[in-house]
């Protein structure tokens, strides 16, 4: 126990902290500028100088560690003079444009000058002048306001790990700028904006549109983008989200955000948002009343159900909707329509992979805590760039490297480039051989642990049969890679979607599971949708009821039947691909799509569209008139993120509250469905989303007894009070793929940090960061095809072709063309084929063969 005396007050401390922290713990405020709780100690601004007994010089409270018996004074007249002196130094070059500055009201410098009083203008020389920099889409820099606390630089380098900005020159000439001196061209996380104490680095989104004290509401909610589930605070004025900021101390992101989370909120007020239901009349969609639209949907669905049976109808759920929305939707399909035809785009990899992994390791095997990654001694990354798919998770891997951990990657991972990765880039079809070799080598180096006999028998098959040790892998970093992997004590394995969407994905996933088993690691399965996990938890799958109870077991069904007071079909439903196929064949008559753009987000969109056009009746419920909504017979506008309450479940299985931030007329997805249900004589009477959730907690073993209050209090990870997760290991299907033929060009999905697709393309700030889809290709491959950087190219597959600008980029693997799936008419998935992996049932998008040809230079 350490006792210190600050301003006459005795403070007892468990362990040594800085004088500043000790003072704060006792409610004593010491002024600071360069100090920031997210950053390392710095001691540059000198505002926190305090008197310490028995020390001749003044000491900086932010750097000095307390010792037992230390006596400190923080507010003497002499110290006030010192602070005035320091503030005078800071003001000699600071413009006094506070009335015009957006920071006024929350400016740390302003507050300090207000406290210690201004000095008379003794500085007679000219102030430094720097013109405002508006080169960037979302960040505005006013560097003449900079006080050189370097918080932004330390954030960018030391926490975000982007190192996009730096202090240039030295001494009085030192100033902060991005490498180019102009545009940042960075990850646009905006975390520099968060930490700037003055108005030097600010967001452009709300520029001159409000003053901080005009914010009426600070509403804490969860980001709508990826499955990390960052806490965000929406600051609202006049029913408009003015700004989104993180909160220090929040569970997953602890004060950090990525570009999407911070700048991607403008879709909420987008003028193109649907406001009124539409019904197709004489071939055209016309606005109509809710009453008519709901009545029509109820009538048509009832009709088709009567005529063709419930199984002629299918529903597609949404990984962007809340748990409550998805729960009500699947209940509607099962209880009202009477079918298990409910699925989602999770079928594009996540659902199959999760089921596969849980079959081996037990339920919840991928539900590991994200922040734990930074404490791993080794992180193995395969199948994509975590720093773009799940940026805040990516930061934890960077932190792992910074703390001295090993980052091992299979394939080139751009976002980890500066974090000393040991990289194996097998390319082409050799990934499988490499993974087999790693498995064999781990077995021979470490032996089999003996805890999972089924898995081990499969591992033995691979080791024996493949002759894997002999696989042709001549990577120079291989010894280093395998050495570090073998020696690791607290490893983690991070698996991205690129691997799940490649040829032989099921077999590769098995090999990664085997590696994970042999090194005793933790698994992380990346997901790019905010509630992909929660949607699956809610039973939006053709074979699983809420809480992952197999629909085929009568005992399980019984419980749900009792709760819903109706029969549930025992026949598993169609998966999303089977639905499209059935629609194309005319077997499926109607579809209800909630919050999903199937035409754009499934492979071979042209085929999806053609199939869906054959439906007798299509309902699309969405925020925008998407490619899919345009095909609908009835379009139902739902309230979206920011406009409704509910819960999301992130990839850790953390259940978090999503809150209404602005008031909009309209109904939540679940409420629309409940209304239709009522029209179909099945009472669904929920007072609000909380009532829906209550029902979930009664029915899903994972959510048992949970309440909104407990969720709001934080740190709710399932199973909460329910049964422990686990499960018997089932048979492990293996399906070793043929090695892919070399020489052909294949498609790859470019996962762009700034986008998610349908929501992000309606967020102007994100569009400004990345406004045009660009295809990327390595110099060798481009050269062989006589293609040059900037060429307009046509990329064609068996199913489709699109035209894009080409960027020649040394970081792309040979023989691959990377295309993002963001903008209408230019989506990578439109080119993809529909060949499903026999094990994961996910499409091998990345095995799509394409041709690339030049169609001339771009004019613009």
């Amino acid at each position, binding site marked *: 126990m350490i006792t210190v005396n600050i301003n006459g007050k005795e403070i007892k401390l468990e362990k040594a902290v800085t004088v500043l922290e000790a003072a704060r713990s006792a409610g004593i405020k010491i002024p600071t500028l360069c100090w920031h709780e997210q950053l390392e100690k710095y001691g540059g601004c000198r505002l926190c100088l305090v008197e310490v007994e028995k020390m001749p010089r003044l000491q900086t409270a932010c750097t000095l560690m307390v010792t037992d018996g230390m006596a400190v004074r923080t507010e003497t007249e002499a110290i006030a003079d010192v602070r005035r002196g320091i503030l005078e130094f800071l003001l000699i070059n600071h413009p006094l444009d506070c009335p015009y500055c957006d920071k006024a009201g929350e400016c740390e410098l302003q507050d300090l000058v207000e406290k210690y009083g201004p000095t008379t203008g003794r500085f007679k020389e000219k102030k430094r002048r720097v013109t405002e920099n508006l080169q960037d889409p979302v960040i505005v820099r006013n560097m003449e306001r900079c006080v050189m606390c370097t918080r932004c630089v330390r954030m960018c*380098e030391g926490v975000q790990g982007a190192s*996009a900005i*730096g*202090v*240039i020159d*030295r001494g009085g000439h030192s100033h902060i700028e991005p*490498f180019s001196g102009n545009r940042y061209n960075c990850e646009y996380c905006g975390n520099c904006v968060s930490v700037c104490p003055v108005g030097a680095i600010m967001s452009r989104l709300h520029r001159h549109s409000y003053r901080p004290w005009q914010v009426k509401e600070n509403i804490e909610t969860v980001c709508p983008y990826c499955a990390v589930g960052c806490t965000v605070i929406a600051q609202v004025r006049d029913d408009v989200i003015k700004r989104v900021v993180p909160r220090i101390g929040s569970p997953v992101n602890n004060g950090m955000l990525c570009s999407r989370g911070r700048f991607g909120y403008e879709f909420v007020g987008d003028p193109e948002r649907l406001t009124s239901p539409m019904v197709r009349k004489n071939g055209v969609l016309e606005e109509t009343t809710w009453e008519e639209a709901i009545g029509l949907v109820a009538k048509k669905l009832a009709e088709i159900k009567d005529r063709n049976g419930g199984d002629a109808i299918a529903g597609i759920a949404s990984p962007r909707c809340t748990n409550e929305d998805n729960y009500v939707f699947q209940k509607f399909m099962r209880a009202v329509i009477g079918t298990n035809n409910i699925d989602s785009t999770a079928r594009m990899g996540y659902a199959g992979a999760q089921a596969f992994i849980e079959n081996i390791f037990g339920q919840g095997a991928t539900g590991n805590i994200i922040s734990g990654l930074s404490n791993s001694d080794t992180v193995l990354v395969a199948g994509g760039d975590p720093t773009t798919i799940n940026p805040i998770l990516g930061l934890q891997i960077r932190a792992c490297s910074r703390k001295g951990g090993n980052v091992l990657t299979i394939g080139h991972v751009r976002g980890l480039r*500066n974090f000393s990765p040991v990289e194996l880039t097998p390319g082409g079809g050799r990934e499988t051989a490499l993974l087999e070799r790693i498995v064999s080598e781990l077995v021979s180096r470490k032996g089999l642990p003996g805890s999972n006999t089924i898995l081990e028998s499969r591992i033995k098959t691979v080791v024996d049969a493949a002759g894997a040790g002999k696989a042709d892998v001549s990577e120079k970093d291989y010894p280093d890679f395998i050495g570090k992997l073998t020696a690791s004590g607290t490893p983690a394995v991070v698996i991205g979607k690129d691997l799940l969407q490649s040829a032989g994905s099921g077999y590769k996933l098995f090999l990664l599971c085997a590696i994970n088993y042999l090194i005793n690691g933790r698994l992380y399965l990346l997901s790019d949708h905010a509630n992909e996990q929660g949607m699956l938890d809610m039973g939006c799958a053709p074979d699983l009821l809420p809480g992952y109870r197999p629909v085929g077991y009568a005992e399980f069904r019984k419980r749900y039947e009792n709760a819903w007071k109706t029969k549930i079909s025992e026949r598993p439903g169609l998966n999303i691909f089977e639905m499209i196929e059935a629609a194309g064949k005319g077997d499926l008559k109607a579809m209800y799509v909630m919050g999903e753009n199937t035409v754009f987000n499934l492979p071979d969109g042209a085929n999806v569209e053609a199939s869906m056009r054959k439906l007798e009746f299509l309902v699309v419920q969405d925020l925008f008139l998407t490619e899919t909504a345009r095909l609908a017979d009835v379009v139902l506008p739902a309230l979206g993120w920011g406009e409704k309450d509910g819960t999301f479940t992130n990839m850790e299985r953390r259940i978090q509250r999503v809150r209404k931030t602005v008031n909009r007329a309209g109904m939540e997805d679940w409420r629309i469905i409940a209304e239709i249900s009522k029209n179909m004589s099945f009472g669904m009477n929920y007072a609000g989303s909380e009532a829906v959730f209550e029902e979930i907690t009664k029915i899903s073993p994972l959510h048992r007894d949970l309440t909104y209050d407990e969720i709001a209090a934080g740190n709710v990870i399932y199973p909460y009070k329910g049964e422990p997760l686990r499960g018997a290991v089932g048979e492990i299907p293996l399906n070793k793929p043929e090695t892919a033929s070399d020489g052909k060009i294949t498609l790859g999905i470019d996962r762009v940090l700034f986008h998610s697709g349908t929501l992000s393309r309606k967020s102007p700030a994100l569009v400004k960061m990345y406004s045009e889809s660009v295809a990327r290709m390595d110099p060798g491959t481009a050269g062989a095809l006589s293609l040059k950087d900037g060429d307009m190219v046509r990329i064609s597959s068996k199913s489709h072709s699109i035209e894009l600008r080409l960027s020649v980029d040394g970081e792309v693997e040979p023989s691959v063309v990377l295309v993002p799936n963001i903008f209408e008419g230019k989506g990578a998935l439109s080119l993809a084929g529909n060949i499903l992996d026999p094990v994961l049932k996910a499409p091998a998008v990345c095995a799509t063969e394409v041709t690339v040809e030049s169609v001339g230079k771009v004019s613009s």
Partner: protein
Amino acid sequence: MDIKDIMFSQAAIKEIEEIRAKYPTARAALLPALYVAQREFGWLSPEAYEAVSEILGVPKAIARGVGTFYAMYKNRPMGRNVVQLCTNVSCMILGAERLVDFLKNKYGLEPGGTTPDNRFSLVIMECIGACGTAPAMLINDDFYENLTEKYIDEILEKYR
């Protein structure tokens, strides 16, 4: 094509990789690597920073921050020969300022400037450790001490 291959000779890349091996971290090789880059191109252009960054895996904004901190890295193009004249106190009181004027009047060489024929650039230095033989200067890597106007004339003759 990587920028390092566009910017550097294979020999220079090899040299930097050898320097890298002398230190326990890649970052520690940054200062010497920037010297190599400067020797190769005469100054540290944005491309030079990018190339060094690529070889060492040090982010380019950091490389540039470091390269602009130190006075001996040149962040703009320089003449073929860099005259580095000390004007700190010991040199100043023994007439260094007169020499600055002399260079300006006779050679049109302003502090921080370059002659139109690109033959010389003038950099004003802080103390170069030749105070006992002041005034002094370095031209490129060579020391010249006890300078006078006449002596400077003779010295500059040697540099083309």
